[in-house]
């Protein structure tokens, strides 16, 4: 099995001169197809920065990132946006669903951005909501759903355009322990497959057992790696 994502010597700093703070100090990373990778570590260790750099939303100062052999930081910003749209799905910590749109409309958004006709987008969004078990709540706006259900809508939105990589930012932070575990278990067993990888940034040790591999970050570096799959 090949690598879906490769990154090398990633360096990222914020500020200039005396105010310069390093968030990444030369990170190398490879993610395999079918892998569920967790990035863990204390606050300020660089997890979110690494996640942003490898998903193409924060440009590194040094190093490179390849996704399916495409060096993403060599793309023009509009092409990079398109690349993200077609290849990467995001589940944000606070979901960022539009509160006034229905679940179905929220899930349709990535398809609409891809210029897929409205009715076709709705059909695919419905299929995606079916996968996450929310077929009967498609017409409800997010504020009428529970936290776990909102998370599922966010997952449905992330998978609707069948991306190769799914990025989860603190997926259990806004959920109670049991719901969080259920969600990650669901993702592990229903969303992950051999054609995609899932990268999760989390503090939550209760869900570590669902990972194939856990990278522990500290001070902008990967300090150790635990391989559950082996």
């Amino acid at each position, binding site marked *: 099995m090949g690598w879906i994502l490769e990154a090398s010597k990633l360096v990222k700093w914020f500020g200039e001169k005396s105010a310069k703070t390093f968030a990444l100090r030369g990170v190398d990373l490879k993610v395999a197809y079918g892998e569920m990778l967790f990035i863990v570590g204390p606050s300020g260790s660089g997890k*979110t920065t690494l*996640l*942003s750099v490898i998903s193409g939303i924060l440009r590194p100062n040094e190093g490179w990132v390849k996704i399916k052999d495409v060096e993403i930081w060599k793309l023009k910003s509009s092409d990079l*946006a398109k690349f*993200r749209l077609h290849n990467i799905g995001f589940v*944000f910590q*606070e979901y960022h669903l539009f509160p006034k749109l229905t679940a179905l409309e929220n899930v349709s*958004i990535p*398809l609409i*951005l891809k210029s897929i006709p409205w009715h076709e987008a709705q059909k695919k969004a419905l299929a995606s909501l079916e996968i996450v078990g929310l077929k009967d709540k498609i017409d409800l706006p997010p504020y009428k759903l529970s936290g776990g259900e909102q998370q599922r809508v966010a997952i449905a939105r992330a998978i609707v355009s069948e991306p190769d990589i799914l990025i989860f930012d603190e997926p259990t932070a806004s959920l109670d322990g049991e719901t969080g575990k259920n969600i990650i278990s669901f993702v592990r067993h229903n969303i992950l497959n051999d054609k995609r990888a899932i990268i999760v940034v989390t503090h939550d040790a209760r869900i570590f057992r669902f990972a194939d591999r856990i990278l522990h970050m500290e001070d902008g570096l990967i300090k150790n790696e635990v391989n559950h799959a082996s």
Partner: protein
Amino acid sequence: MNTGLAKIAIKLLMSDRAKFFTLILGVTFAVFLILQMTSLFTGILTRSTSNVLNVGAQVWIMDPTVQSDRTIVPLPDYVLSAVRSMPGVAHAFPIYQGSGLVKLPNGAYQSVNIVGLDDDSLFGRPVIIEGNLYDIYSEDAFIVVKDAEYKKLGSPKIGATFEINDHRGVIVAIARPIIPGLFGNPTLYTTYTRAIQYLPTTRFTMSYVLVNLKDPSYLDSLKQEVTRIGYRALSQDEFVNMIKNYYMFKTGMGINILMMTLISFIVGTSIAGQTFYAFVLENLEKFGALKAIGATNGDLIKTIILQSSFVSFLGFGFGNLICSSYIAFAKMRIPNYAAIITHKDIFMTFIVVILITAFSSYLGIRRVIKIEPFDVFRG
């Protein structure tokens, strides 16, 4: 822009009803005020040129110092003879325009506009709705115009007598309303000869020489000939524009209306701009999330422009509807109300609406372009 994104954009906009209605209200209010101001201005300017439009001559010959129809400098009789002999002139007639004082039966005095028509041709005559035009030649005869000011003369019937500048006057016919004047005076028509007999005049008596040309192509040569004898010839449109410019730029009327229009624009833009900006700020994180997902700045800019345009054009429609209803209603109740909505006024208001849209969009776009998807992760 794809239709799906347009649908989402409109739904997002309309789902926050309070903000949506505030936005529409802001634009509607601005459109109403601006259209009301400009239509009032148009109405006033049209009335200011009523003395010219009601007569309908192709060319007006006047003293070169005349700035508007309010500053009549009488012409000597030889000007009429000279103009009649100029090439291209089909007809040339004298006209008297001035004002008189009518003593009403109750003893009060009422200022009136007097138009003295050329005795032979009656050129510039009004349309008679009661009585006979040719009775104008009878003794002390006057024709009264039945317009909004008619009541100020006690709504006289045919045969009614009155006193004008210590002369007897008799109403011999009633004319259809013409474009009303700016100063709210009733209008009386009589013959040129009677007008200069009854009303105090200077040594010269002709207000203007009115000319109809054999062919419009003679206008330039006529102008040159008239200039050569020391006077000025203007086509009807040129004279109308000269009067309008006088009122716009030399009376303070233009600047006052402009200031009020500007205030309406500022109020409307402030309400619409601020509310739309608040709407964008409320959804800023969501826009950031969309950027992370893969929306380009172009997608988001189109979304914002569509939303602000939608609100602006709805407001434009409502503003037009309310303003035209208001003017129609006001005219039913107040016949003197001057406002007239022209295509020009609507076009100008439309331009203002585009400016409001551009300003509102600009505020939102500036914030949305600056938001980094990374900020969504950072929280």
